[in-house]
């Protein structure tokens, strides 16, 4: 990782009496794909607008590429970003190519810049580039909106629900595109209500509710149940339970030689060592994961107390 691209420190933002973001702190590391999760009205879009200076925070500090809003350095920092927030924002009565040409002009691109064609290709619109956007499906608008977000070769891309309305093939294409961006030096902050999709796309997640952070961390940490599954020979499962219990780990034998171990936060290698010392050699040893959906719902149910504790 090459440092922090974006950080929030105690940021709050209200719309009238409604607090959209409440004392929010987090950081997005360079060249990562970070997912922003939360139920409807959690403040995800507001967070994205705050990042770009489209909305202004009431309290707290935001830094984008080390620059704070209202500072001179913030404007060039914003130009290093690309974004798609809420619904695809495009000019309906002209073609996809025209949309890219108009926005490209703002970044000094010429009308026939070959990069515009490449972007159309990347987002899968090269075959419909001359068609009017008015006739586009929601999925095609999403693709165009994604094209607009990457047009200036940004170092940070902020995407709000980028796979909304896409067909399954489109979802895979967009996922692959997002996953490929960090290798080119780009950082991605993405929100989606499709938790399965987020789980496959991001490295880290931030879960917010009512504008506050519920939990954050690497996706593996977030979905980890804290248990390790061990596969030993069927006849050795009882012995394995005894050995692990003696080591202070909670273990229960399952069917077919499977043992479920509560490591109490110790690494899985401790499980392997304890068993090997007792002459029991596991054929498989892997951390047990929940899916992101159940983790997410569990965190929201208990207010994230477990995760934050």
């Amino acid at each position: 990782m090459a440092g922090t691209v974006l950080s929030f420190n105690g940021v709050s933002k209200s719309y009238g009496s409604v607090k959209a973001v409440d004392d929010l702190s987090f950081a997005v590391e360079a060249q990562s794909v970070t997912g922003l999760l939360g139920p409807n009205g959690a403040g995800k879009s507001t967070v994205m607008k705050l990042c770009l200076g489209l909305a202004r925070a009431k309290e707290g500090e935001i830094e984008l590429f080390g620059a704070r809003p209202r500072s001179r350095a913030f404007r060039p920092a914003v130009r290093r970003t690309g974004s798609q927030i809420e619904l695809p924002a495009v000019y309906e009565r002209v073609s996809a190519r025209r949309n890219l040409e108009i926005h490209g002009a703002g970044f000094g691109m010429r009308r026939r810049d070959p990069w515009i064609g490449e972007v159309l290709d990347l987002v899968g619109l090269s075959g419909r580039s001359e068609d009017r956007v008015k006739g586009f499906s929601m999925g095609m608008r999403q693709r165009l909106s994604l094209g607009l977000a990457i047009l200036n070769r940004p170092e940070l891309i902020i995407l709000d629900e980028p796979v909304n309305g896409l067909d399954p093939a489109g979802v895979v294409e967009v996922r692959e595109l997002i996953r490929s961006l960090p290798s080119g030096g780009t950082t991605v902050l993405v929100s989606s209500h499709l938790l399965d999709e987020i789980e496959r796309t991001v490295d880290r997640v931030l879960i917010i509710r009512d504008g506050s952070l519920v939990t954050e961390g690497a996706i593996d940490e977030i979905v980890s149940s804290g248990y390790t599954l061990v596969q030993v020979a069927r006849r050795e499962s009882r012995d394995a339970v005894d050995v692990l219990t003696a080591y202070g780990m909670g273990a229960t034998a399952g069917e077919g030689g499977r043992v479920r171990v509560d490591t109490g936060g110790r690494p899985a290698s401790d499980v392997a060592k304890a068993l090997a010392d007792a002459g029991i050699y596991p054929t498989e040893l892997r951390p047990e994961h929940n899916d992101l959906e159940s983790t997410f719902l569990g965190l929201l149910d208990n207010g994230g107390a477990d995760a934050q504790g």
Partner: protein
Amino acid sequence: MLRVELLKIRRLPTPRWVFIVTFLAVLVASAVVIGLRPTGQDVDWYVDGPKLAGEIMGPVGAIILGAWIAGLDFASKTIRLSATMQPSRGRLLAAKLAAAVIMVVVFSAFAFGLAFGAAKGCTLYGDVPFPVEAQLRDFGGAALQAALWGLLGFCFALLLRSYIAGLVITLVLAIGVDSLLQLIPTVGRYMFGSATFSLADSIAQRSAEFPVPEAAGVAAAWLIVLFVLGAIRFRRGDLA
């Protein structure tokens, strides 16, 4: 950013349609004048048709264009893209204002230049003399009036952050409300319409209702107050 705003004007269809409809309106008015094949009519009969087309389409087209330039990005939600492309809101607004000034001036010149040419053509057809200088002043005054209404449309759309709201309010003001309020002696003195009429009349060397400095001051006050309020809202508010 001015380049982007001008590119939008060139590439998006609304401005093109405003020009086309204006051209057709003047063409149809001229065709009606010529088609009636009158004899023994004076110059006004030949001039009034194309001029009326210009007087309707000039201010209406200018208002559409002014409101469109200020409100397009809000209507299409592309304001977020524009504001990240040019994060200085002052510069973004300056680009929009410059584009609006250029556009309403060019359009007003086009509408009344076309009407002027058509009127001259009609008088040639009717074989009546065309007083070029007097008509030039007359059409010039009307063009200035149209351009000022276009700028008012820009200011209303900016303040309301809406193309449609800016367009409707300015059109309603231009078509009826302003004229009605002019009937109230004290209020009428400060209406935008009466100020622009006086400016147009003075250019046409007709007797103006209000002196030029006062009319110019009233028109400028309307534009400056609305623009400043819109600019404050644009610069300080969230672009959500």
